[in-house]
């Protein structure tokens, strides 16, 4: 319970005393091809995937070399656009010219690659290699050419596996950052969509792109995000949670302050609401910030279905949140402290079930909840082939067999199962995990203090949540501080035509009329073509 009170918002200050922080020393290329190659070779060691390919050693006129990393480049592209033109060029073989002229000739005419760059230091050269470029080094020049030949094996765009919807786009991000930005560009065809790229992680040099709509995203939030990203001092970023934890607010709060999703439409929706998307190379999961508590109960599905059913489902989600957090605790509290609250018939049948149970309700509940979490974790770890085994065994441990063995009461099995099911209703896994933890705390308190304890804990929790911020946005906005007109998309989902303004929840700069289209009268609202309002 103690961590809940840590209001630490300023822990993200860069730590400069880290020992292995790279000291930027720039080593320039030399004029000698052999010297350059040797230096490069020493730099990467005997890595088998680095290919050094020398050309023109026989003619001796302009010896040059290609360096690339096998697997990161598209071999066909290297062969056809670089190697073939270079070896077949008569000019290069026969014409007399200076090294400078030859270098320019290669750059301008011979190499047929769209994206080329000149490199002058070994550091940039190495970095360029690791991005899949082919580096062309020539004799007599202290500059090198980098041709973009990146073409590694990529996973194709598939259906999202963790955020499924019934009606809606079936694309998800892949591990490739460029695919991600392209998916977003395809959804928001506006020049205001800005993509800023960062390299984070001294060793992994992971590309991270922040995506936002200029003019809609709050400049202050942007500045704060940039400051936090620049302040990150780590040697690795291997997934989205590295970034989430390094830049998130709230200290040791269990509540997430940044959303994550693998759905491009969810990121596009958030960006249109003024949130900032953070795409990370190497993981299909992207982040959205700033995020308030209620964002975690919104699902893209809400905007793809009619408003009435969406509102209903959203209410169900909030209910499930509370049920999942409190049901075992309420069961404990009511059956051990407040028996008068249960209808007599139910009480009698509960008492009958408890007749042969050896443990107090609290121990029974803790035991069963832990069992469920063990099962759940086992289900994730299990190889797919033996997956069905877990459901069979699970049904025994958490089911009728356990009741018949006299270990637990049947009511407790139902409570635990319903709690578990409710937990899966919450669209954001991070939020669902919060209550997985809080549940245990709540059960303990309910076992000591009953309903009074549950109520006190809820109050403490509320106070804690009211004190949280996500990038300067109060965590309970727009409920606390209350802005009634922003509530259209919080507990219910108002029809699209009613949501004319962009709520300022996500720190959007201003409340704007939707789509800057002149206001449409309700009579012809069916023909209205609107473009935003869906995070």
């Amino acid at each position, binding site marked *: 319970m103690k961590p809940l009170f840590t209001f630490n918002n300023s822990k993200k200050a860069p730590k400069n005393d880290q020992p292995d922080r790279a000291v930027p020393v720039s080593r320039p290329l030399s004029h000698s091809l052999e010297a350059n190659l040797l230096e490069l070779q020493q730099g990467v060691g005997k890595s088998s995937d680095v290919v050094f390919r020398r050309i023109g050693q026989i003619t001796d006129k302009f010896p040059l070399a290609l360096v690339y990393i096998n697997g990161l480049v598209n071999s066909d592209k290297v062969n056809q656009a670089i190697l073939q033109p270079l070896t077949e060029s008569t000019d290069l073989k026969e014409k007399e010219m200076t090294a400078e002229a030859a270098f320019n000739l290669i750059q301008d005419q011979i190499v047929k690659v769209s994206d080329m760059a000149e490199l002058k230091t070994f550091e940039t050269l190495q970095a360029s290699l690791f991005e899949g470029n082919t580096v062309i080094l020539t004799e007599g020049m202290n500059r090198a050419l980098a041709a973009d030949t990146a073409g590694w094996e990529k996973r194709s765009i598939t259906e999202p596996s963790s955020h499924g919807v019934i009606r809606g786009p079936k694309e998800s991000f892949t591990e490739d950052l460029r695919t991600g930005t392209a998916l977003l560009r395809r959804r928001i065809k506006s020049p205001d969509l800005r993509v800023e790229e960062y390299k984070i992680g001294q060793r992994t040099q992971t590309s991270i792109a922040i995506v936002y709509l200029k003019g809609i995203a709050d400049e202050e939030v942007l500045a704060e995000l940039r400051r936090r990203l620049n302040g990150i001092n780590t040697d690795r970023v291997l997934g989205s949670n590295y970034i989430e934890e390094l830049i998130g607010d709230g200290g040791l709060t269990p509540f997430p302050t940044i959303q994550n999703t693998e759905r491009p439409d969810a990121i596009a929706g958030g960006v249109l609401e003024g949130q900032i998307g953070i795409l990370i190379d190497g993981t299909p999961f992207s982040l959205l910030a700033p995020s308030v508590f209620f964002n975690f109960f919104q699902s893209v599905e809400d905007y793809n279905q009619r408003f009435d059913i969406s509102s209903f489902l959203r209410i169900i989600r909030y209910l499930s949140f509370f049920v999942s957090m409190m049901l075992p605790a309420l069961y404990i509290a009511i059956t051990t402290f407040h028996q008068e609250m249960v209808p007599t018939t139910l009480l009698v*049948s509960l008492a009958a*079930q408890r007749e042969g149970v050896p443990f107090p309700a609290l121990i029974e509940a803790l035991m069963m909840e832990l069992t469920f979490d063990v099962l759940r974790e086992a289900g994730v770890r299990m190889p797919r082939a033996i997956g069905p085994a877990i459901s069979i065994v699970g049904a025994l441990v958490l089911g009728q067999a356990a009741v018949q063995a006299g270990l637990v009461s049947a009511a407790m099995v139902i409570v635990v199962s319903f709690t578990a099911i409710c937990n899966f209703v919450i669209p954001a896994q991070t939020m669902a995990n919060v209550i997985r933890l809080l549940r245990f705390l709540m059960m303990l308190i309910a076992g000591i203090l009953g309903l009074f304890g549950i109520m006190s804990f809820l109050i403490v929790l509320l106070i804690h949540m009211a004190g949280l911020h996500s990038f300067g946005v109060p965590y309970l906005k727009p409920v606390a501080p209350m802005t009634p007109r922003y509530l259209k998309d919080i507990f219910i989902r108002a029809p699209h035509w009613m949501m004319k303004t962009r709520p300022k929840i996500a720190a959007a700069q201003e409340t704007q009329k939707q789509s800057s289209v002149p206001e449409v009268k309700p009579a012809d609202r069916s023909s209205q073509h609107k473009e935003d309002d869906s995070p």
Partner: protein
Amino acid sequence: MNKGSRKRSRRGLLAILSFSLATAGMTACWDNRELNELGIVSGSAYDREDGQWVTTYQIINPSATSSQGGGGGGQGGPSPPFLTFTERGSTIMEAVARSNLTSTRQLYFAHSRITVINEKVAREGIAQLLDLFLRKPDASETVNVFLSERRAGDILNQLMQITKNQGTGIQLMIQQESELTSYYQGIKMFELSMALSSESHCAAIPEIKLTNREIINKIQEAESTDLPTRIALGRLGILKKDRFIGWMSDREAFGLSFMTDKINSAIIPFTSDPEHNEKLDASANLMDSKTIVRPVWEGDHFVMDIDVKGNAMLLELKGKADLSKPAEVSKFERNIEQNILEYINRSWRTVKKLGADVTMFAPLIHRAFPKRWEHIEKEGNWDTVFQEIEIRPRVSISIDRFGLSSKSYKSVEQD
């Protein structure tokens, strides 16, 4: 938030936290009772013998009552749906405390449904009992109260069919009776205390009895279709100032229900053709009845104007009748009204004899004539004023529905 105030708020939070943690430790499960430590009381009975309280508690036996027998603990052999404990003590709570000498379970009263009071106990006064129920936190004031002429504990021992939980069963019985028959209403402990502390200081408690001497208290005996002894509702006991003063028969109680506007639905038998046949040979269901009582000061005594209005549905008819003729219908209506008048008058005679204002005239007079009431209170002569009260009942019943046929069967037969 600047640094200083954040530091201060953190210290405040820590203080709150440590305080709440400390209190959590202090409480140490003081109220923690597991369900299998509780004896859920469904009914209690109070007798007095040799100057001591004899209390009987009926405890639900969960594994026998619950539908699926319970998990794990279902040992073979039928066990009764409830068990009873009888204890003696100079006070009620002493008797309760002594029950722990024989019972494995802590008595838990919150789900108690009925309380049966022996007539003798009621004659001596039930103030102590009322106080206990209003004072003790887990004693529910919503228990239905009954009077019993025989030993009250015997009632709780009697097994019931269909509704195995006897306390609940008796509560259902009285609810159904007041809903469908309306001879009298069940009274709950809080209603009883409210009635006894009102201006009239009177209350009516239904009687609960066993139809035979012998008690059916073994499940084997309860397996026959027609139990030789059953639980039944009987007369209406009248209390004045927490003491029992007498009984009213169920018919007299019926009239009282009309006077106090407590009729929900009732069956009224009547004579379809009083000129030729005096016997009751038809009945109607009074579906909706409203009584308005108005006190009037007539110089030297009060007269209560009692207006009963209601709608009825014809249910059975012996003689010839054509219901499409309004004259015949209104003849029936007059007969029904006559019967109700008879009920009311008979009831009033008994009430007057008992001298107990269960008709609740006192609050009405207080409301209508506050000055005169003050005078009565000062004189303390309500009892004599009450004896001088005259009632002027007027009943108007209309038969709105005749059921599915518009002619009596006899008429059809002759046609």
